[in-house]
């Protein structure tokens, strides 16, 4: 009896240990980057001799850093809007509707998820190059946005689909019974209920686009986004400005994740209180 309990305890400890180890694995490179961003030395080896913020200054003074930030922000904003709207519509069509050719629609909207990003980029690059030579345009930020939308929309779709799946449609019926029009039902009931999923999808899309390298690298032409800036920089030689950049990069992502979590909790609380009231 005792040995059985000890064996169970051992299994529990090992399982929890795996998760802890996995988190260490996930955060090892991120923590390393943050630590090295404050070094006072040019070489990126331990031990870190002194504390300094000089690499942040050097990063901000780099002439091609700010254009890359602007490009990344523009691409991520526009891609997020498209991916979230298309993904939400797609999720509703995936889960709630049944229609002819739905199988085809599902395959078509899910397939990009099964493509390595580089191949997705290459395939679109070929198409845009051929199209560009016919119509007289070349690849740039616009093609990057198209690429990001194709790549990111399936992710947004999956995130919203989870929310649509757990959707309680009796609330819509109640609103309709109370005399609300189709649009009012959507605005007052459907959208607020789907909002947490849509919001998570938007954050997910923004961060995926912001950090995307492969698709941008294939489709950017001469334009540069932040990950391309880093890639071409570390190809030349490592410098403490990249750890500094990584640390700066974490701040907006962290803010977005915290906002999402707060909103999600508030929505959960509202749902719970709504249920207990009714």
């Amino acid at each position, binding site marked *: 009896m005792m040995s059985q309990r000890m064996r169970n305890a051992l299994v529990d400890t090992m*399982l929890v240990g795996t998760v802890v180890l996995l988190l260490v694995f996930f955060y090892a490179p991120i923590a390393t980057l943050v630590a090295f961003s404050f070094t006072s030395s040019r070489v990126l080896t331990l031990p870190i001799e002194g504390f300094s913020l000089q690499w942040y200054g050097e990063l901000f003074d780099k002439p091609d850093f700010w254009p890359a930030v602007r490009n990344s922000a523009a691409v991520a904003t526009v891609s997020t809007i498209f991916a979230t709207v*298309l993904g939400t519509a797609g999720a*509703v*069509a995936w889960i709630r509707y049944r229609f002819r050719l739905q199988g085809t629609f599902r395959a078509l909207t899910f397939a990009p998820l099964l493509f*390595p990003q580089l*191949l997705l980029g290459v395939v679109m690059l070929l198409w845009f190059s051929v199209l560009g030579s016919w119509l007289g345009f070349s690849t740039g930020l616009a093609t990057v946005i198209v690429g990001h939308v194709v790549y990111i929309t399936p992710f947004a779709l999956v995130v919203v689909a989870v929310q649509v*799946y757990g*959707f309680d449609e009796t609330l819509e019926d109640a609103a309709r019974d109370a005399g609300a029009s189709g649009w009012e039902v959507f605005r007052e009931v459907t959208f607020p209920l789907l909002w947490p999923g849509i919001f998570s999808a938007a954050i997910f899309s923004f961060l995926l686009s912001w950090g995307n*390298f492969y698709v941008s690298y294939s489709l950017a032409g001469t334009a540069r986004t932040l990950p391309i800036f880093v890639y071409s920089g570390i190809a030349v030689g490592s410098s403490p400005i990249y*750890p500094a950049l990584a640390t700066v990069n974490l701040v907006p992502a962290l803010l977005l994740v915290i906002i999402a979590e707060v909103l999600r909790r508030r929505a959960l609380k509202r749902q719970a209180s709504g249920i207990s009231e009714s």
Partner: protein
Amino acid sequence: MRIEHKSWNDPVLVATVAPLALAMVAFFLIPLLMTAVLTFQTTQYYRLVWTWDLKIWTEVFSKPHYWTIMMRTVTMALVCVVLTVLIAFPAAYALATRLKTFKTQIQILIIFAFLTDAVLKTFGWILILDKNGVANWLLMHVGFPPEMLNLLFTPAGTMIGMVYNLVAYPMFTIYLSLVRIDRDLILAAYDAGASRIRTFFEVTLPLSRPGLYSGAVLVFVLSLGAFLEPKVLGGGTSPLASELIRQSFETRVNWPLGAALTVVLIAIGALMLAACAAFALRRTSSTGRPA
């Protein structure tokens, strides 16, 4: 969940489905077909010539160099599948069955790491794996000989990067299939006198197969396109298929060749997908679904 049957005459259906479907056709399906068409064209003086020619395909099939790299890519992808699943399963299982208190926090931490810029994370691994890097420094300070690990610019370095960037995918799929398992089935097994270990192997593991299979396939197809890891962590010493494709576009400016190699890689991924789907289907139909 109520299902609504919709006809294509319904403007609501058209408005929901058409924009996304058209975008995917125009920027995903047509580009794919275009890639296939391009493999039958040729180049002259770095310019595309529109013909119908099998020249590129004869070149692809007659050069063993390409196939060595393709084989290496497939081998790396298979090793990556095994490693990621071995790491992801226990972690997903722990997340689904233990750790109730910190579950959300851990999930957010994992998603946050997953969404952080891959180029920067890969650069972080350089700093860890370098001969004078963090890993060797730590090992030296706990008593191991200096410069013990020499992983940067080796296939092992590439593999660490690939596992790192892909392990989140099977974690998600396996976790999802584990939380969907009906708790009553497990309790029934306990009631029937099965031990925890026996229950795990005879109930939990078989029921988590959809997540296992889909995670494994996802890692396989995504690792076929690994580019950053072999380039940055492998140092380009043993290039994978993606590097070959990039070279044929950038260095050789040979689009048909790049297109053909892309088609080969997509075909390998599709074959694997089909094989796995057939296997999964046979497994579920022969064992039957638990009533």
